[in-house]
């Protein structure tokens, strides 16, 4: 028993080392992204006070700027912000004093994540299914139909789909509410709008991934072994074809927390996407930076998760990971 545990530990040790190394890199990436955002944001003309009230007396404006430290040189402001971040404080809104960035994330991102999550789940599942179907019926009508839909899905902008849906299902046939957020019925149209993109993307991606696998020699071996068509598809094709999609799915999952500005604006959903964009036009420095830190964090984590998942799913990468550590 002891030796077994020891062996298990030995085999997982390189993996731990590898993950630790990756976390250090992630911290580096987050620091770089935060710095770039900070300086870009300060390069935008104007300041939060002018963006809020235009005809403020100059003295009052100056007093506000001094109270927030905006009269200091940018370099000093940058160091102050980093210090604040390291103490675990994401800062608070300038526009709405007292609103903390952490609270904004807690209040607005669940709506974005709910709509985006359902849309992504529906889009990915249908997309992968359509892709597999298209690849198996290559050059026959199901393939043509899926590819046409995928083409339309990627080329028609979301706001066009949203407007058409709104017009058809709330004005012509009033089945769903137009805008707002008050229960499940309000989610149907935004979810449909948001799942079109992933559906089209994943259908195309899965189709080409499947076609890649179908032409591999090991599929020929599986046929020569006398396996049933069904087993060849489930055990030999799908797993290998899904591997390249894992990274894409993880990145998409990270994307749902930032929400969709367009869909949230059209359907008046209280999501993070809408809030994020309005914070930029308000020059609400701390909100933009704080949200950026959180969303970057989610992104780099999702990429780490996808790499770990790939290691677990693909034995070839597992060995490479051990060598790299």
């Amino acid at each position, binding site marked *: 028993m002891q030796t077994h545990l020891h062996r298990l530990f030995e085999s997982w040790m390189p993996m731990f080392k590898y993950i630790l190394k990756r976390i250090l890199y992630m911290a580096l990436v987050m620091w770089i992204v935060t710095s770039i955002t900070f300086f870009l944001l300060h390069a935008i003309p104007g300041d939060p006070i002018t963006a809020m009230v235009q005809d403020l007396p100059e003295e009052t404006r100056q007093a506000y700027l001094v109270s927030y430290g905006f009269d200091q040189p940018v370099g000093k402001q940058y160091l102050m912000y980093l210090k604040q971040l390291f103490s675990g404080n994401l800062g608070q809104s300038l526009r709405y004093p007292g609103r903390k960035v952490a609270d904004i994330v807690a209040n607005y991102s669940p709506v974005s994540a709910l709509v985006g999550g359902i849309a992504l789940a529906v889009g990915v599942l249908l997309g992968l299914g359509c892709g597999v179907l298209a690849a198996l019926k290559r050059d026959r009508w199901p393939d043509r139909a899926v590819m046409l839909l995928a083409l339309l899905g990627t080329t028609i902008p979301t706001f066009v789909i949203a407007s058409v849906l709104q017009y058809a299902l709330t004005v012509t046939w009033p089945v769903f509410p137009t805008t707002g957020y008050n229960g499940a019925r309000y989610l149907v149209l935004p979810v449909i709008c948001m799942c079109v993109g992933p559906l089209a993307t994943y259908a195309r991606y899965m189709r080409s991934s499947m076609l890649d696998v*179908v032409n*591999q*020699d*090991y*599929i*020929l*071996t*599986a*046929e*020569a*072994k*006398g*396996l*049933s*068509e069904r*087993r060849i598809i489930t*055990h*030999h094709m799908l*797993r*290998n074809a899904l*591997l390249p999609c894992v990274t894409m799915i993880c990145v998409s999952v990270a994307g749902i927390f930032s929400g969709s500005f367009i869909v949230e604006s059209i359907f008046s959903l209280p999501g993070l996407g809408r809030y994020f964009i309005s914070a930029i036009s308000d020059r609400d420095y701390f909100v933009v930076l704080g949200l950026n830190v959180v969303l970057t964090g989610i992104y780099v984590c999702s990429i780490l998760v996808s790499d770990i998942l790939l290691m677990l*799913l*693909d*034995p*070839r990468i597992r*060995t490479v990971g051990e060598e790299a550590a």
Partner: protein
Amino acid sequence: MGELLNVKNLSVTFSAYNGEVKAVRGVSFTVYEGETLAMVGESGCGKSVTAKAILRLLERSSATVSSNSVVEFEGKNLLTLSGKELNQIRGNAIGMVFQDAMASLNPTMTIGNQIIETIRSHKKLGKREASKRACELLELVELPEPQALLRRYPHELSGGQRQRVMIAMALSCDPKLLIADEPTTALDVTIQAQILELLQRLQKRLAMSVLLITHDLGIVAGVADGVQVMYGGSLIEKGTAQDIFCSPKHPYTAALLTAIPRRSMERRSDLYALPGTPPDLRLALDCCPFAARCKYAMPICKKQMPEETGETPGHSCRCWLQHPMAPRVALNGGEAGG
């Protein structure tokens, strides 16, 4: 010796964007029980396509097998069987080994599972029994530590080990016929010899027939009972290994034998190379496919395909030189081109 596999008039055509490639043109041959038949020819002559057509492995590609082709295995025409009946023969009565074992094994499945799924799709065995059988098979192909090997993935093995695994998998249901499609081409020379010796030992031990496809006449000499030479999609000469190596009848066979490097050759210029290139298989080729490169070519060779003629039983050839009215030329195997 009874007939095990009887291929009659097999023709395979691929549709490509720039025309139809007639890769196999009316090939007929028989594999007898317990014999090793070697099919030899240069790259692109249609030997691999013939092998794949036997098990109908071309159905996913753009290939069409002509409707009057017959592949008779133990009296059943494989080309007209239903998918289910065909799957009962594939991997069961006929095993197949491919050229590149790395590409031919599923990279994300353990060796054990790949062998076990073959066994369990043909035999009613539990997981544990199938796993035991897989272990025995790995022992049969002389792989060390079979139990540990079952849990390994293809990329963790060497090239020779992978090909042994492929062979074990092909033998998992005691096939009557093993089709080995260039089993040693992707391996280095010392491993090649080991794999060939293994195949030969297994063939004797399991009393099965082997259809060995290769472009290397050198490996055929020690292994094969019968040899058939393919060129431009047609079989141009058939015979016993003795016939082909000692008294080749077709100028192409003779040229192939001349091209085998020998130890007595010291300089690069001593190596013989047959001038010209293989024919374009998109052409109709109603003549002898070798006519354009043959140094004995006569006017008729470019007009009409010669019939199959045999002097001694079992040794036949498609060449106008065999015609009673043709001039006598000396094709003394190795010395012909030198």
